[in-house]
């Protein structure tokens, strides 16, 4: 009873699925994981993806995008989730392009968005400074100077950081860490003086690490003009809806693979899928995945439809709901997937165990279920 796709979405979803199975599947994931270079993603693959037009799905036509909305972009992310595809889509498009779309001036959008659409500009959002997402707990400083702005501070868990062209840095212009207002957002070239990066291995085999800004000077044109606490929350909402879509792909893929295994593996002379203990857990899991898909669809629709303050408020709430629910269902999915596979589920050689690692990373990014449930309660007024 989840919403049917439009014809356009159906076509998009199919072409992404075909492309990914061929070019960004788990086989490629493994090869990339075991690489020896320090690059964050395969730039040849990224160019191909850009040529397919997928970087511009949620970007306005005025800047070269196809304006299919976040519901469209989510179809790509969902397939990436199913195949564990390693691409800079989350950092560059979901987070980076959205930050510029939501908070950039006309000039800023014109100079950066078309380059994101054609794949020539990659970005990474450097927002969080700790292990738990806290949107306003930003200590990184931005001081106004004669030349523009001077940034200093340390950002953790920054995605794709050795390979992106620019960082989008959230920094404090005034006030103290924790204050809702007083934040600024700056587009900082990777090669600016004072920028240093240090990559750290992470369980999902993607690159992330620490970005240090040591009196980095950028000009005024690099400061996004429309930054407010509400805009920042809206950005977090979009990112969370996108991450929820990737998590949905993981839920569906782990469920499908496990269901298949239940119909193949025999013990005690019977298929393990004939045991009621497993049947009931599989049936419960199935229903949870249905609800998960519903809430993600609804959050994306709300984002695409929002036009006024009330629309944005609703979308914001639904994005938090989607992230909280998907974090829960992804935990259920990846845990049950391993358990129902038995020993083989614990092996590195078998794919099912790879999903749990990606899922937990996505869950933590921009707020885990506890963050979003806490937020939900606050938005509900209790």
């Amino acid at each position: 009873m989840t919403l049917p796709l439009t014809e356009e979405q159906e076509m998009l979803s199919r072409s992404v699925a075909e492309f990914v199975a061929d070019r960004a599947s788990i086989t490629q994931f493994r090869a990339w994981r075991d690489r020896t270079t320090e690059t964050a993603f395969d730039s040849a693959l990224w160019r191909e993806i850009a040529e397919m037009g997928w970087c511009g799905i949620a970007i306005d036509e005025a800047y070269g995008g196809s304006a299919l909305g976040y519901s469209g972009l989510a179809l790509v992310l969902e397939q990436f989730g199913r195949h564990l595809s390693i691409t800079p889509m989350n950092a560059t498009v979901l987070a980076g392009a959205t930050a510029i779309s939501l908070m950039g001036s006309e000039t800023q959008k014109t100079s950066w968005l078309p380059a994101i659409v054609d794949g020539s500009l990659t970005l990474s959002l450097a927002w969080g400074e700790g292990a738990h997402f806290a949107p306003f707990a930003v200590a990184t400083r931005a001081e106004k100077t004669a030349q523009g702005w001077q940034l200093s501070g340390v950002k953790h868990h920054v995605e794709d950081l050795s390979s992106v062209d620019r960082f989008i840095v959230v920094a404090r212009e005034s006030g103290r860490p924790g204050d809702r207002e007083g934040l600024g957002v700056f587009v900082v070239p990777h090669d600016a003086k004072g920028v240093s990066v240090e990559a750290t291995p992470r369980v999902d085999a993607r690159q992330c690490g620490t970005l240090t800004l040591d009196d980095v000077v950028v000009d005024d044109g690099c400061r996004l003009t429309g930054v407010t606490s509400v805009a920042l929350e809206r950005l977090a909402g979009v990112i969370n809806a996108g991450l929820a879509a990737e998590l949905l792909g993981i839920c569906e893929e782990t469920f499908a693979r496990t269901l298949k295994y239940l119909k193949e593996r025999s013990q005690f002379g019977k298929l393990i899928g004939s045991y009621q203990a497993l049947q009931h857990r599989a049936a419960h899991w199935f229903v949870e995945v249905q609800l998960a898909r519903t809430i993600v669809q609804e959050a994306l629709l709300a984002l695409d439809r929002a036009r006024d303050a009330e629309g944005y408020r609703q979308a914001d709430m639904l994005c938090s709901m989607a992230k909280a629910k998907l974090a829960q269902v992804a935990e259920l999915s990846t845990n049950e997937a391993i358990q129902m596979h038995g020993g083989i589920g614990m092996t590195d050689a078998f794919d099912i165990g790879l999903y749990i690692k990606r899922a937990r990373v996505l869950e933590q990014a921009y707020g885990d279920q506890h963050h979003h449930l806490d937020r939900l309660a606050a938005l509900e007024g209790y």
Partner: protein
Amino acid sequence: MSDSFRDEVRAWLAAHCPPSMRVAPPEISHLYGGGRRAKVWHPDQPAWCAAMASRGWTVPEWPVEYGGAGLSREHAAILREEMRRIGAQQPLFSFGISMLSPVLFKFGNDDQRRRFLPDIARGAIRWCQGYSEPNSGSDLASLMTRAEDKGDHYLVNGQKIWTSYGDEADWMFCLVRTNTSVPKHEGISFVLFDMNTPGVTVRPIKLISGASPFCEVFFENVRVEKTNRVGEEGQGWAIATYLLSHEREMISSLGKIRHDTDPGRRALEIFGTDGEGRLRNASLRQTLARYQLDAAAFRLWIEHGERHPSASAGMGAMSSAVKYYGTELNKRRNELYLDIEGADALLWDARGPAGEAWARNWLRSKGNSIEGGTSEIQLNIIAKRVLGLP
């Protein structure tokens, strides 16, 4: 087009739905059930039902000839939304509508549809469901109530149990065994008879919630005309399961009928907040948020299905998923109210701000995951029919 329909509905409801019918009753069993012996919980209920029936709005999507209004799915949804907007009480709570009518539309003959449907639409005749027996609950197909072929009629002997509203209903739709020499699923037929027929004895059973809306029903040489058999002889199991999928949808939506107090607001009133505006009890706050998240996802899931018929195509087995999750959620909600209200909720006659009978509703909710097929049976059905497990 839809807007003008919405305006018309809104105006009509404003004129015809009295304030007394804009509140939910304290318990679902206090909704108006109609029938020859109609039990009236509020004096305005019969007139409200009659007014709605005169527009065909007790069964808005049925054809006009059977007492409906012939509304499209979209218009029926608008009517429901407008009723929900003003908190209008469901005018008629009827197994005739929710369970029997789908069967008559699909398996009945013209004569049966003409005889029974208009009375169901108006609430003139109340129906009860004779499925379960003392030794045939989850394993319903093992039922033993015998219907002996006497030419133009059957003679029925046996016993049903857990028959909801058996003491108030006028007619029963009943599963009987017409053939004992074939596999159990193939020897069952679906028959209709008047509860006043000689040989029918009804004995109410009291529930843990104190109410007694369900009964034991005994049959001793009860004469049932063959013209009151729906479908072919031996087709009863197919009909029974078709009906069950509708029953499940009805049961899973029971939680929606009441317009209960908002649990978050209520918890704030009772517990107050900490220095930063958060509910003072952190554990309760978390339980509340988790419940509200799942309830919202479930509600949206159902709404997507209602809005997009193609999304709910093949709902037969999916109704098990809806029933399973909806009833478990309803039980969670009732436990949550208990957590919020505390010891006060355990007083038999305690009423919430919206008139809810806390204790009785909480106890009654335990039956939601049993009636219409238990949660375990729904999970079995999902596993086998939706997931294709052996």
